[in-house]
């Protein structure tokens, strides 16, 4: 309970800090909107030229894209500590100040940053989802709404977990940490589109290693009333749990790495 309150208060401070510079904040939020808008425009142009993608109609594609965007940018907004600030804290030794406090390291890192500018990207994602939902004529029901929330929540965990890999590699002072971007940002880009368009190795990667397909695509397909991988309906509710499993595994990896933390800097 206390932990949740700590997180909420930290986020409050974060947002207040950033609003100290309103002009800069506004400008950067606008830039985020343009960036995400550009990606979205590319999707619209693709749909304009090709009409459909295998069995997926425009509405489906908008919905997939929106779900991914909302999940990813929610994570970047509220989990910025882990998706952005963490590797920097390890490199500079700033992590020391967290280690001398009687709280879990991960919780404190989680509390240490927020990125409210991402609200612009989330808005684009929501717009895409709404557009997709209208075009695909989704008949919303309580189970579908619940599944959507479940999918986003476990997607959040999955993405945090993937970013923990980067943090772990930084501790082990692996030089090619950019490699982890293939899983995080690469996964994000690839899984904007339904997974079944990719060749088998990529499908395996995004089902087993970074299970975006299980966490986001299977539920999305069920909500859209389309089959994916031929899973039965109950599986749609079970699949997102893969996000929690991934998070657990990558968290264990991170715990092991933390023992090697060497606190660079003076």
């Amino acid at each position, binding site marked *: 309970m206390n932990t949740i309150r700590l997180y909420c208060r930290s986020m409050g401070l974060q947002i207040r800090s950033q609003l100290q510079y309103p002009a800069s904040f506004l400008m950067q939020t606008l830039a985020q909107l343009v960036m995400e808008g550009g*990606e979205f425009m590319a999707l619209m*142009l693709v749909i304009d*030229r090709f009409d459909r993608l*295998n069995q997926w109609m425009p509405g489906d594609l908008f919905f997939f894209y929106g779900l991914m965007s909302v999940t990813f940018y929610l994570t970047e907004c509220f989990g910025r500590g882990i998706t952005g600030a963490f590797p920097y804290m390890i490199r500079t030794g700033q992590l020391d100040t967290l280690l001398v406090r009687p709280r879990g390291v991960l919780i404190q890192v989680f509390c240490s940053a927020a990125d409210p500018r991402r609200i612009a990207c989330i808005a684009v994602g929501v717009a895409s989802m709404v557009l997709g939902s209208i075009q695909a004529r989704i008949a919303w029901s309580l189970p579908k709404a619940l599944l959507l929330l479940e999918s986003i929540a476990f997607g959040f965990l999955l993405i945090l977990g993937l970013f923990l890999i980067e943090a772990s590699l930084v501790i082990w002072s692996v*030089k*090619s940490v*950019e490699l982890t971007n*293939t899983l995080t940002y690469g996964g994000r880009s690839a899984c904007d589109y339904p997974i079944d368009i990719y060749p088998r190795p*990529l499908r395996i990667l995004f089902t087993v290693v970074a299970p975006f397909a299980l966490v986001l695509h299977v539920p999305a397909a069920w909500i859209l009333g389309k089959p994916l991988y031929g899973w039965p309906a109950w599986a749609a509710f079970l699949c997102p749990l893969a996000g929690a499993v991934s998070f657990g595994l990558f968290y264990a990896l991170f715990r092991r790495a933390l023992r090697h933390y060497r606190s660079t800097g003076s």
Partner: protein
Amino acid sequence: MRAYWCVFRMRRRMELQYRGAALGGFICQLFFGLILIALYRALYAGKPQAVPISHISSYVWLQQAFFRMLLATDPDLADKIRTGSIAYDLCRPLHLYTYYYVRILAQKLVGSLLRAVPMLAVACLLPEGWGLASPAGASALLTSLPALFIGLLCVSALENITMAFTMRTLDPRGMQALLNMLMMVFAGNILPLTLFPDSWQPIITRLPYAQLLDAPIRLYTGDYAASAAPGILLLQSAWTVALAAAGLLFWRVNQKRMVVQGG
């Protein structure tokens, strides 16, 4: 002249220092290229287009290979602007526009060469329709190389304007992100310009952004016939000169302002 050459050498040394990071970045970009091509192949399977898929895959690889030519922000330079220590440079006995032009050019050239050579080597090994196809002909290759070089000159001129422009704002990050996005979209990095709606083509191919990579790539793949090459090279050169002139003007105004403000 020697001073400018030194800037060049220093950049190369700096780039080489981060080999580990470069390897990670390289593999990551390879991955992005594969994803994009897989996507376009799936789209083509449903509705083939006038531009063959092999041109699209070549387009993607060439964009990936020369990615650093488009987007390689110099963090030192951006920091200098933000902290105001750019004032030191104003005291140097160098022609400021040329100094920055060389600096930007060096970074883009060295960065993209280090990235392009291995990327193109890997892309050539991939099977037909996935990898980089050979050029449409000898004339296609011969015209695309000078086009690429003019593209490099053009993008450096463009970035120098961005630099001058962001010097005027206190926090350049927002503006830079905005201009970068514009560049990524209209240079064809996010989606090949050949796949933009046909009705847009007359406009977008004449924008300066299309002169950077799109024009050389289309000459390479044969989307532009070799006979059209002189006109394209002319257009590229015209934009380069225009952008350089605009940048020069912009820097001069900035410099005057800074002198007035006393740094």
